[in-house]
Structure formats: C-alpha cells, structure tokens
C-alpha cells in the first residue's frame, strides 16, 4: 500500500509586512508571506492579497463604454468615484493623477493637492497615489500630494530609476510608502529596491511594481516575474522581499479584447462578458503568482476576484 508523504518546502525567508493607512484612516497590512500563495499545508501567510480600485482625477477618455457604464457618473468626480469604489468592495483606493500629464491637461502641484484632499476626505480607506508617469512631472506634483496626506501613510509612486531619489525622499520625510516601478525585469526590480534602501527608505515602506502585461499581451512576463520575486524572497533574498503590486486590471482595459465590441471574430464571443472575463483571469492569475495588491477596474470583475481570494483562503 502506498504511503503518500507530502513534500514540504522549508523556506528561510519571509516577505516584509507593509502597513498602509493609519492616522485616522483604516489600516491594511500586506505581505508577510512565509510560503507561496495559498499553500496552507506548509505555512500560514498572515495577510490576504488586497484589491485596490483604480480611480482617476478626470473622466477616463480611453475606457470603453461598457466599463464606463458600470461606474456611471461617478467617474466625473474623484470624490464620488472613491465613495462608489468603497461600495464596490475596494480595500484600497488607487488614485491616478493623469490630468498632470503634459499632453493630458498639464495641471500642477496645487491641483494634485486638491484632488488628494478631496479623495482623503471622501473615504477612510488607505490610498495609493500615482503621478502621470512622466518623471519631471511626477517630481513636480507628487511632493504636494504627499504633503496633503502627511501622517496617513499612503503609497506614493512611481519611483523609477530616473526619479526615485526625489519621490523616495518625499516618502521618507512624510512617512509614506514608496512604490518601486520597473519594466518587466527582475534584475532592475531588485536594483531599484537596493537604491531605495540605500536612500534610507525603511524595509516596511517599499512596495514593488515589477509590471505585468494583460492576458494576451505579456501576462506570462508578469506571472513569471511575480513567481521569481516571491521564490527569491522566500529563499532569503531581502532585496526582493517586498510586497508586490500589479496594475493588472488597467492593462486589460487598454487592450482590444476588452474594448472592441464590433469588427472582431465571432469566436471572441460576447464583448461585455469578454472584457470582464479577461480582467478576472488576468488578475486572479497574477494573484496566484504572488501579487499582494491587485489594482482593478470593473465592478463585476472586482466582486468575482474578491470572492476568489476568500475561497483561496478557505473562507
């Protein structure tokens, strides 16, 4: 008679825990994993992956009608949008300051501060605030956003190779969390973590955004980078042992599979069903690979992925 003895991996490393919120704001702790996602038979991961809902400081011009319709008029005002996101199950709000993009409004520090104030007073969830991703512009507006949220431990980004000194220093002085963003490259990711650490950003105040593609557009890169980062962290590499944030939902809604409602093959099926399915599958797949904070867009997909996380956790 066979005797099945389950092999257990003995990991030496542990992912750092990072606490968002506080200062009157709700707190959310991510990270702390001692084994791969949801393998409860060999270790107890203390915190579940969390869903952040993406909101913008202006009505999204590029979102398809089906996604906009799911939010209604809320997308016209970031405060209203944030409240609606709470209703739809957000655990964290991810505010993107896209108006500040040089080709998308080119608004400045004062506007950024005002929007952050508005969202902070609208909801009591922890906040992630992202600039438009243009280094000079991020350097210009993120210090103001940071100042507006002083003491409330938001996550601020992105820190990229070009501007990590500025954003990292702002996080350090205002007690926020720095989001280290690198383009689908595990070595660059580790390198940026080292540089932020050298700058003095404490280990409990870094999140890694190693980037991911959507389903059909490079999800395999994001998937493997998540897995490799997590395996390295569990293997004891301190400089890959920060919680992972993936903007997986937004990636999906940039792609034709989620957007196109006509002019595509019949084999693509119902367009509304397709967009939601692509977001559900992209986000749940990166979660299974080690994502700690998944940023999402469509309320229906959010509901499903939240239920998925609970089920994976045995709830």
């Amino acid at each position, binding site marked *: *008679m*066979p*005797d*099945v*003895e*389950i*092999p257990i991996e003995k990991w030496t490393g542990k992912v750092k825990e990072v606490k968002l919120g506080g200062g009157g704001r709700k707190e959310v702790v991510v990270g702390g994993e001692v084994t791969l996602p*949801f*393998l*409860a*038979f060999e270790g107890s991961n203390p915190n579940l992956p969390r869903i952040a809902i993406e909101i913008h400081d202006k009505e999204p011009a*590029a979102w398809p009608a089906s996604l906009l319709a799911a939010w209604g008029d809320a997308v016209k005002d970031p405060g209203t949008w944030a409240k609606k996101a709470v209703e739809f199950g957000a655990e964290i709000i991810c505010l993107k300051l896209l108006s500040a993009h040089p080709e998308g409004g080119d608004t400045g520090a004062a506007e950024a501060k005002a929007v952050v104030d508005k969202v902070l007073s609208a909801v009591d969830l922890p906040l992630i605030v992202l600039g438009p991703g243009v280094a000079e512009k991020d350097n210009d507006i993120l210090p103001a956003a940071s100042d507006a949220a002083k003491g409330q431990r938001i996550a601020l980004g992105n820190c990229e190779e070009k501007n990590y000194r500025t954003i990292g220093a702002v996080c350090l002085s205002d007690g926020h969390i720095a989001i280290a963003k690198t*383009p*689908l*490259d595990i070595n660059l990711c580790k390198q940026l973590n080292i540089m932020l650490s050298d700058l003095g950003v404490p280990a409990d105040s870094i999140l890694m955004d190693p980037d991911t*593609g959507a*389903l*059909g*557009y*490079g*999800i*395999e890169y994001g*998937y*493997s980078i998540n*897995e*490799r980062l997590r395996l390295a962290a569990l293997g004891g590499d301190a400089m890959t042992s920060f919680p992972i944030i993936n903007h997986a939902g937004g990636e999906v809604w*940039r792609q*034709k*599979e989620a*957007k*196109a409602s006509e*002019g595509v*093959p*019949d*084999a*693509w*099926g*119902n*367009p509304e*069903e*397709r967009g*939601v*399915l*692509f977001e*559900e*599958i992209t986000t*749940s*797949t990166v979660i*299974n*690979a080690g994502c700690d904070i998944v940023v999402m867009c469509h309320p*229906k*997909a959010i509901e*499903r*992925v939240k*239920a*998925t996380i609970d*089920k*994976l*956790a*045995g709830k």
Partner: protein
Amino acid sequence: MALTGIQIYKFLPKTNCKECDFPTCLAFAMKLAASAVELSACPYVTDEGKQALAAASKPPIRLVTIGAGEKKIEVGNETVMFRHEKTFVHPTALVVRVKDTASADDLAKTVEEVSGYSVDRVGMTFGLDGIAIQNESGDAAAFAKCVETVSSKTDLPLILMSTDPASMSAALGKVGDAKPAIYAATKDNIDEMIELAKKSGCPLAVRSSDGLNELAELTEKAAQAGVGDLILDPGVRDLAETLVTLTQIRRLALAKRFEPVGYPVITFPGEGASSLDEEAVLAAQHVAKYGSIVVIDRFSPALVLALITLRLNLYTDPQKPIQMKPGLYQVGEPKPESPLCVTTNFSLTYFSIAGELESAGWPSWLLVCDTEGLSVLTAWSAGKFDADKIAKTVKGENVAEKVSHKNVILPGGVAVLRGELEEELPDWKIMVGPREAMAVGGYLKENWQK
C-alpha cells in the same frame, strides 16, 4: 530526474570499444545524459543495464495520449513546477462536456460549435481539444447512442464519462479505434474499469473520493494490472483544495519521483462553480497550476478565447519571446504612397498593429525593428528601441526603394524619440502615431492624405 553521465557510466561495459562512435564509454555516457544519443548505439550493454537505465530515465509524469487521429491529445511529461525554470511541455487540453440527457438538437449544436471553434492568435490558429460525454442518464443504451452520435459529428478526441461499467462497455463498442479516455475508475468499479481499459487499449482516468492515499492505491492497482496510461482526478473541486492538491501531486511526481501520482491530471472547474465567471477563474487556475486536461461545462466563446490565450501565454518558452523576423512587412497590398509605420519585433506588438491597420482599411508598410522580441515600451526602456536602431533599420531595409514618400510614423509610446530621429534621418518627416494600436485607424484618417 535525469541521470548524470557518471551514474549512467556504471551501467555501461567500460570496455571503450568505440563501436558507438565515441572514444570512451564515459564520453558516450555523457552524451546519453544530454539525450544526444540513444542507448541502442551501444551493442554490449546488458539487459539489466538497459532496464535500470530505462527505469531511471522514465519521465516523472507519464505521457498519455487520448484519441487516435491527427487531433489526438497528448498530455504529461512535465518536468518543472514553474515555467521560468523550463518550458511547460504539453499545453493543457481544453475539453467541453456534453450530457447524454441533452436533446438531439442541443447536442448537435454544441458538438458543432465546439468542433468548429477556431481562433487566430499571434499568427497561429487554435481550437478546442476534445469533447467529454457524460452518462447523466445512467442508462447504458442512451449513453451508447449519445456517444455514437457525437463521434459521428466530430473528429475531436472523446472522454467517456460514466462510473457504470456496463454503460462504459456499451459506449466503447460505438467508437471503434478512436481511443477515447475512460472516465472514471473509482474504488467501487476499478476491477471492471481496468478490464475495459485493457480490452480497449484506452487511457483510464482514476478518481479518488478520499484524498491522495486512495488515489495512489487505485493507480497502483491499475498499473499492476498492466494499465499504464492513467489520468488522475484527485476528486477536489474548489479553488483552495485544487491548488493545494494539484501542487502536491506535481511535487510528489517531480521531487519525490512518487510514481503512483506520476500521471497527467484532469479537472472539472464547472463542478466547483455556480456561474461562468466562477468557472473561468477555476479553469484559469488549472491552466496555470498543474491541470493537464480541463473539462469546461459552460461553453462560451469569450471564455474559450480567454483560456486559449492564457494557455498560449503560459506555455511559451520563457527564454524566447515569440518574435517576428525584422524587416519591411506589407499589410494588405500597399502602394508606394501608403503609410509607413515603425514597430518592434515582439509578435504581439506586430499582430496588434498589423491587425488594426488591416481592419481599419489601410494597406500599409510596417517596418519591424529587431528589439529582441520586446514590446515598444519595454524595448525602449531596455535601450533596444532607440533612434539609432530605427534609423539603421530604415536605411538597412531599403525602405526608400519601396516607399515613394518620406514620412515615417512612430509608435506614440516612444514620441520622445522624435527629435533624435529627426537628426538621424534628416530627409524624413517623423510623425508620432497613437500610443495604442487600436487608435491607428482614426489617427491615419486625421493625419494621412490617402
């Protein structure tokens, strides 16, 4: 785990006779370890040696074939836990289940849709891999009739699903040499099912209702009776338990070389789900985490597209992104005055932009630069898609011989390269296209004189 050259050497005659065309037995052993030569090249290896080497070189997860024709399913032979270690070998088979209680019309419609499903991704065509037929009625004659009907309407491999040996026997009588999979042997019917599998030569799925111990007992029994082509159903259905159990099975097979679970795994996401979305998430998890055959209940083209895409993505070679050969490509039948767009040689980037140009009705020239298979922004960040590279490609591909104008459209994501490119290509007008391929039709309408 493959043997090392030194381990193999112990089983060789050590005479250095050179008849294998290698100077020494050790050199031959090294080549064997690298799978660069067959053991049969050695005329003097003993039978004991052959057996020992065969046992040691046996793949930890057996390769199992379902079906007989061109579309036969091959699953198993996986060698790693994670795709970044080494490519996953046999892509998950996606199968749709029908029931013998369905009306004749519904059955015919589903079988036709499933068999005919076809979709293009990155220049390749994909479809579904098989049909599972469930003996929902419990009636042997109804099952046999249904199996006969389905097999006459499809060339896809079949999985016959019944725990009643009489039903299974009747159905097997209707499929000739099509070699469907038999699902399933359980602790209650295993002896009869083993007999059916032996008689028909079909692979046999084994289902446990009580964890891996029972599963291993059942597979050992089948293997001892001479049925080696087995498929595992550990009997778990929900997200958490499936992830844990399938991970344990893969680990036991690879790390422990525990043979009783060294077989491909079949999953039924529909049984653990109450909606299409829930089934989708389960099925996606099984594609990523160790399901070899995934049987879908809620057939929907959008779901199938998503699963085929996920499988394609995760089963690609992680060392080699799917790449296009750099060069000047034609989209449709461009004229010398048609638009000229620049892009990278990441296949998805190429197909996105080519597809959009085509569907928007713009025959165009598409200049594909060698970015080592990276997409626009990734290649740009990595310094593999810069003004120098683009200028060299424009000059190197003799674009001016085919295109009569001097306008080149850059992807909007690298608008920042415009200035440098103007310096590199002083005769050319550098235009900045949209960031997303989808917008290229609208962009050309606004900015290009037809």
